[in-house]
């Protein structure tokens, strides 16, 4: 197991890593290069790589435990926007049981596991990528580079373009949104990522525009 935090500011990931006390390599990807190399477009997602360095499963949603949130009733009296977010989160597909079983099967059987794909299958099963989506990766990279070397304002036009070119890529959007919606000096990121004056999108409205929570993740194809 190797975990990779997609965080352009490593200080945001470090407290979570410290709390987890991991025994596996727990890495931080400050440039989102693994988005490009492996096809991550949201979190959590995972790829499987065999002993020979070959991918045997493409990037797909990688939950292994059902969130208690899914079985809770939406509390009454919530502010309307929070209530809508709650309902969308609850509607995100849950494939955790099947995905966990598939991992265990691969751990036991390796290449003989029915879940391990051939090289041709794994390429074909990875997400489609258009020229616009490919360009979005370059735009996001330019934004990250300029955020780090020049300042946030220099990044914004490139991140706006990345969002417009590849709206299905939530890592590009959520990473950028949280930088402008988290109050100065806050110890934790703002996960609500609501409407803001910098970007046209925000979490709730973009999820609804994309078809709702049911369309939010790349579901593992395990059959």
């Amino acid at each position: 197991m190797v975990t990779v935090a997609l965080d352009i500011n490593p200080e945001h990931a470090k407290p979570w890593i410290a709390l987890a006390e991991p025994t596996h390599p727990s890495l931080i990807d400050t440039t989102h290069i693994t988005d490009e190399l492996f096809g991550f477009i949201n979190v959590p997602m995972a790829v499987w790589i065999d002993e020979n360095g070959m991918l045997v499963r493409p990037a797909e949603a990688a939950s292994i435990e059902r969130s208690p949130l899914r079985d809770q009733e939406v509390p009454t009296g919530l502010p309307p926007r929070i209530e809508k977010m709650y309902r969308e989160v609850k509607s995100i597909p849950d494939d955790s049981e099947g995905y966990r079983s598939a991992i265990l099967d691969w751990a036991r059987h390796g290449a003989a596991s029915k879940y391990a794909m051939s090289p041709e299958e794994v390429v074909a099963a990875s997400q489609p990528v258009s020229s616009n989506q490919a360009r979005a990766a370059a735009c996001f990279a330019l934004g990250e580079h300029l955020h780090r070397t020049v300042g946030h304002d220099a990044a914004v036009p490139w991140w706006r373009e990345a969002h417009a070119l590849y709206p299905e890529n939530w890592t590009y959007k959520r990473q950028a949104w949280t930088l402008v919606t988290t109050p100065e000096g806050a110890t934790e990121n703002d996960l609500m990522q609501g409407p803001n004056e910098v970007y046209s999108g925000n979490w709730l409205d973009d999820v609804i525009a994309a078809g709702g929570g049911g369309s939010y993740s790349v579901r593992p194809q395990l059959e």
Partner: protein
Amino acid sequence: MIISGTQLSVPEFLAATGWEAKPEGLCRGELCVPAPGALTNGVVDVTVAAKKLGMPLVHDASHNVWALGVATTTGRALASAKAFFPSSLIDAMGRAFDFNSLRGRRIIMVAWASW
């Protein structure tokens, strides 16, 4: 992926993109994409290589920075099943991680984020 210019050495191009420029073409694992004109005297012409791989090449003129997008040769997020491990990932102490330390082992690489 950020690149320092449009003329790169073979190791620089490999480190940036995961594609190795060889006389037979631009290669990752068993896959080689013919790319005449991309490699001359050990120098990769990124404008040619990018076109052959279907990688958008984007320039920020104000800051003179170049970036390459994802290869579109297969029309999928993965051009090849051969994993390319970047050298830029760090651990919580800021130390670079060498994926060679995991050679011969099965890996589940899980992406998460604090946001």
